[in-house]
C-alpha cells in the first residue's frame, strides 16, 4: 500500500519465479505431523507430474516418519492454497493448479502422528 522512503524503492522482487532456473517453489505441509516443525520448501519443475511429487519428492523428507509408509494415498485429503482439491496424479503440477509458492497441505485420515499425538 504505502511506500515510505525518501526516493522510492528499486523494483526488486527477490523471489520471482524466473530466479529459480526453471523451477518453481512449492511448499508441502503434512497436517497432524508436527515432528516436521514446518512445511517443507522444494524447487520443482512446473511440468513435474503430481505423481512424481508424491512418489519421488515427498518421501525424501517425510519417509522419516513411521506413518509415511502406511499412507493409503486414495484417502489423502489435499488442500492447495487454502482450497480442497483432488489432484490428477498424471497431470503436471501446473495443470493441477499448483503455482509458484503454492502451499500444498495434506491430511492422512487415521494416521495422526506418533501414538496419535499429532506429531
Amino acid at each position, binding site marked *: 500500500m504505502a511506500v515510505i522512503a525518501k526516493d522510492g524503492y528499486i523494483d526488486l522482487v527477490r523471489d520471482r519465479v524466473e530466479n529459480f532456473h526453471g523451477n518453481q517453489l512449492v511448499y508441502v505441509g503434512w497436517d497432524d505431523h508436527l515432528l516436521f516443525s514446518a512445511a517443507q520448501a522444494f524447487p520443482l519443475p512446473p511440468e513435474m507430474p503430481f505423481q512424481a511429487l508424491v512418489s519421488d519428492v515427498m518421501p525424501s523428507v517425510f519417509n*522419516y516418519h513411521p506413518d509415511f509408509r502406511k499412507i493409503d494415498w486414495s484417502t489423502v485429503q489435499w488442500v492447495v492454497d487454502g482450497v480442497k482439491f483432488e489432484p490428477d496424479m498424471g497431470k503436471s503440477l501446473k495443470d493441477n493448479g499448483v*503455482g509458484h509458492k503454492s502451499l500444498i497441505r495434506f491430511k492422512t485420515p487415521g494416521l495422526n502422528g506418533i501414538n496419535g499425538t*499429532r506429531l
Partner: protein
Amino acid sequence: MPSKKLNLRKRYELLTRGMGWETTHQKMDDVFPYDTFEGIKITDWDKWEDPFRLTMDAYWKFQAEKERKLYAVIDSFAQNNGQTNLADASYLSAIKLFITGVTPIEYAAHRGFAHLGRHFRGDGARIACQMQAIDELRHQQTQVHTISHYNKHFDGLHDPFHQFDRVWYLSVPKAFSEDALSAGPFEFITSISFAFEYVLTNLLFVPFMSGAAYNGDMATVTFGFSAQSDESRHMTLGLEIIKFMLEQHEDNLPIVQRWMDKHFWRAYRLLALVATMQDYMLTNSPMSWKEAWDVYFVENGGALFEDLSRYGLRMPKYHELATAEADHISHQVWSVFCSLGNATGFHTFLPTEEKMAWLSEKYPDTFDKYYRPRFEYWAKQQAEGTFEFQKGLPQLCQVCQVPMVFTEVQTDPMQISYRVTEHGGDKYHFCSDGCKDIFEYEPEKYVQAWLPVHQIYQGNCGGATIPEVLEWYKFSPDDTGDYIGSRDHARWQEWKGTDAMVKQA
C-alpha cells in the same frame, strides 16, 4: 567577578544546543534531508528534553571508568581459566547464538544511531543519538572481546559477522535490524529505542545476564553490567522520543501507533530466539520465558502503556496473542533447531530428564501435553541409533523470516498458523497476522526480503548440497550437530576428568 566555572545546566546547553545553528548558505531542508518524509511533524525542536543532560566530556569519563573495570575482569577470567567453571560446556550454545545473533545487532544499532546523530535537525536529539551510537559500538566491541576468550577453547565462535549475513536462522535478527535501518530516522528510533529497548530489552538482558551468573559465566555477567547503565539511558531516550513526537503534533499519533504495532511484533518475533536460549540452551535457567514475559511485558509493559494512554497511544496490536504464545514458542523453536541441528553453528541437544521436569513445572498447561512427547520420541530414537536430522528445508515467514513453526495457540496448538497474501501476482506466506499486516502495509519493501531457503534454491549460497552451504556459512563440521560426541563435549570431559583426578590426589 563572575565565576569561571559554569553550572551543569549552562554547560549542557553550551555543549549541545550551543553547537548547532540555523544554516543560511544552504537550506535547512537540504542539510537535513531525512527527517520529514515519514510524515512526522516537529514544530519546535527546542522542546526536546535530553533526559540525562549528559555532555560528551562527562560521557568519556564515565565510560572510561567502566571500561577499566570490565577489562580487569576479562583479564582475570582468562588468567584463571574461567571457562572451566561453567556449569556445562553445552551452555556455550547460548553464547554462540548471542555472539552471532545479538552482537551484530549492536553494530547495526551503532550504524543507525550514527546516521541519526548526523541527520536529526534538533541538536539535542542529535547529541543524544551520537552518544548512543558510541555506546552501541562499545557494546559490540566489549562483547567480542569478552567472548573471544571462549573462542580459544570452543568451536562455533570464530566468524560471527560473516555468519550474520548468511546463515538461515541469523537472517531473523539481520532482517529485523535492516528493516529499522532502511526506514526513516523517526521509525528507526521508535523501533530500536522504544519497541526494542524500552518495551522488550529487559526480556533479553535480565534473563541472559542472570542466566550467565547461574551458569558460572562471570565474563558475560560483567559485560552485561557494563552495558546496563547505558541501557537504562537508552530506555529513557526511547520514552522521551515517543513523548516528544506525540506532544509535537496530533497528526503524529496514528503514525507512531502504527510503528508501535509493527515494531513490537517484529521485536517480539526476534525474541523467540531468546525464549529458546532461556528455556533450553542454558544449563541452569533462572526463570522461564513465560515468567519473564509475565513480569517484563504483561506487568511492566502494561503499566507503561497505561501511562502513555494519556497521549492516545494504546497497547500494541496482537499483544494478547504474544502473551498466549508465551506458553509455546520456546518449545517450538527448539524443536526446529533440534531437527536441523546438522545446520546450526551451535550444538543442539535434547532436554535432559531434569530439564524436562523443570519445563513441566514451568509450563504445566503445555509442556507435557504438546512438547514432551516429541523430545522423548527423539531421545528414544537417539538411544536406538535411528535419529536423523530433517532432510528438507523449512518454509519461512516472509517478514520475520522464522521458519513457519508457530501454531494456532488460541484455538488449536498443534495446527501450524498459515497466513498468505498476494502481491504483484505472487504469493507471500506469513506465520501470523502480525507479520501479514506489516507486509500488506509496505509490500514493496518486503518483496525484497532475502529469505535464506529461497536463496539456497536460487543458487546463491555456495551450492546445492548442505555441506556446500555450510562451507559458505564458514561452519566447520565441528561447529554443528549434537553436543554429545562433539569436540566441545570431549574437551569438557577431558577437563573435568583431569579436575576430578587433581581433587582425588
